[in-house]
């Protein structure tokens, strides 16, 4: 028989405060009944401890659950989504601002014709100048007036 004033279950379960604990320990050193009771309680708790914790069979899944998915408007508040929106807007603005003017084929053709005409005119002038010089040399060399 153990002494009623000592709570050996609380002692074995670590629920006694420092002074109570020391008092109980001092008592058990002199009381065979209480030592026996404490030994039985400890044996019971140690035997219970043979039951090992089991691993959880599968991870508790929350990320995939609907309730944890962000609401549609929360998607727009995500930093990554906001950054993507800014980049996309910048690309679009750049595209509109730097777009080349509309091409007018008639204008191009007129410019080409004008350039060709100028070149042809320059060539004809050059040929005429050469012809005049040649005729001038011929006239001087032969004394024949060639026209």
């Amino acid at each position, binding site marked *: 028989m153990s002494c009623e004033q000592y709570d050996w279950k609380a002692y074995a379960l670590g629920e006694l405060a420092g002074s109570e604990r020391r008092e109980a320990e001092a008592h058990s050193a002199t009381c065979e009944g209480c030592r026996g009771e404490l030994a039985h309680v400890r*044996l*019971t708790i140690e035997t219970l401890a043979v039951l090992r914790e*089991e691993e959880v*069979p599968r991870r508790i899944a929350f990320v995939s659950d609907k309730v944890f998915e*962000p609401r549609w408007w929360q998607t727009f508040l995500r930093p990554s989504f906001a950054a993507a929106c800014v980049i996309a807007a910048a690309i679009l603005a750049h595209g509109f601002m730097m777009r080349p003017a509309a091409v007018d084929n008639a204008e191009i053709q007129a410019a080409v014709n004008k350039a060709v005409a100028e070149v042809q005119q320059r060539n004809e002038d050059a040929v005429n100048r050469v012809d005049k010089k040649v005729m001038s040399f011929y006239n001087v060399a032969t004394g024949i007036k060639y026209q």
Partner: protein
Amino acid sequence: MIFREVEDRDLIAKARKGNVESYNLLVSRWEKRVFNYLLRLVSNREDAMDVSQEVFLKAYQSLPKLDDPERFGAWLFRIAHNEAFSLLRRRKPEGEMPVERGTVGRQLLPIELSLAVETALKRLSEDQREAVLLKVYQGFKFEEMAEILSCPVSTVKSRLYTALDLLKATLCEVHHEL
């Protein structure tokens, strides 16, 4: 450089703001304890898994109601307790498990001792078994158990001490038969 593990209260604060990753980390810290508590209480792995899932879902939804993040553990087990007993109430009463006795004169194998413990636990009432689970296996203090079970500390001690007396009678008998 000193690495400090993120405290539960920090994870709770982030989870309250909708950070699911923080809550997932919180789940990974507590799921094994909750699952084992439920497993011993409802005695069925699938039920324990389903109830665990339900517990963590309800805990997430109720996080804004958690007054003191320091007491997250007791609060979480309170939810687990409610869910487990909700399941137990829905179940039909089962027949009492027969007690398996050790064979006289030989050393019990660890698996046999485990079975003896499981059987002894199943012979307890649900209230008594839960008190043992919370104290011996989960290490909660009497005050925390009272919070989880919504009852006075005196009731907690009464259930636990009765359970230990019953277990002592069964398990010490097993040892004496060796």
